[in-house]
């Protein structure tokens, strides 16, 4: 099966910053991304869980973006500009994709 090398970027970011990240991704020219819900987690700023929560504060989402290697740098810059002083994680993995014309 014909596959193509690409990058998979996973950004775990606070929910109140989600809109800003999505705008930045679009501006950086990525062709697509997917947002996954997050139930809870733990980090240097403590443990948290979405259970019973009403406020978007104290929640995170995971944004997954699969893209051509040459676009990676632009995306990382855009993501970092949004993350700034905010908590969150950015993790990049090598991957292979089917239907490369879609990226």
């Amino acid at each position, binding site marked *: 099966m014909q596959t193509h090398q690409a990058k998979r970027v996973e950004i775990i970011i606070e929910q109140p910053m989600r809109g800003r990240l999505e705008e930045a991704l679009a501006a950086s020219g990525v062709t697509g991304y997917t947002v996954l819900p997050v139930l809870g987690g733990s980090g240097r700023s403590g443990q948290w869980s979405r*259970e019973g929560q009403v406020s978007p504060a104290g929640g995170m989402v995971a944004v997954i973006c699969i893209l051509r290697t040459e676009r990676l740098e632009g995306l990382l810059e855009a993501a970092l500009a949004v993350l700034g002083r905010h908590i969150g994680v950015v993790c990049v993995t090598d991957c292979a994709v089917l239907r490369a014309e879609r990226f």
Partner: protein
Amino acid sequence: MDGMLELAGQNLISPIILSFALGLAAAWARSDLTIPEAVAKAMSIYLLFAIGFKGGVAVSAHGIDTRLALALLAGVVLSALLPLVAFALLRAMSRLSVLDAAATAAHYGSISIVTFVAATSVLTSVGIAAEGYMVAVAAAMEAPAILSALWLAARHGGAAGMVPGLWREILFNGSIVLLVGAFLIGWATGEPGLAEIDSFISAPFKGVLCLFLLDMGLVAGRGLRQSGGVLGTGLFVFGVLMPLVGGAAGLAAGFALGLSEGGVALLATLAASASYIAVPAAMRVALPEANPSVYLTLSLGVTFPFNLTLGIPLYIALAGAIAGG
């Protein structure tokens, strides 16, 4: 004061308060009892819609009196100024950084709608009426405190200025839009509108409030457990003192405006209450270095239970003393 004690006692064994206590106890016992996020949100949407709608219907029935504009203005001013008081107290009473103090101050200028709902429900059960437009005042008090807090943070060299897009987010945040929208719908449709949906927004109201408070007890209890260490005595005292300060300011403003007994009590409750939905989200965007467990624990774990149990009966009793028949 007698009446207050009786009211406080009655209040303490109401299903509403006991549901909150059950949530706290369950969290403390590390029970796995939880309310799904979607369900908590549904209950909050229901309560906002119902309280807004009923306020609007009340306005349509009694007309707006000339005090509406003044009450809104008073709410905005209280919301803008109380953070300054809170900030000064926090800097004096605790070792919070400028940023943490500013972020926390924002919560105390703004309001907690569920505290408002609980006060309304106590007023109804003791038969004291209040101006329907107090829900509009509640909405008006959500945002100004945030501006003051950002100004405080910037003034003390704590942070960069306003984040682009934040204003729209604050002004059109879901709870304000729903509360004001439902208020306007209630106003426009009046009693006939209420008749159509009364069995939805009135009959189950208190029961939903019980389950919502159960959820808040669970969340507050887990917050207290997970960040127990975060609050020293100074902060703890602040969490009880500040609502009294805010409540007093609200009482004074309400009395000066000539609001009804119930209206004064509600304005005091609003001023005394601390946000735990809209303001935390705004602070995560604007002051990300401020520690959320400080302001959330304080607002939800200390001030909210205080207001729910002792504060509300106190504000009602005082309102009765100064504005009552």
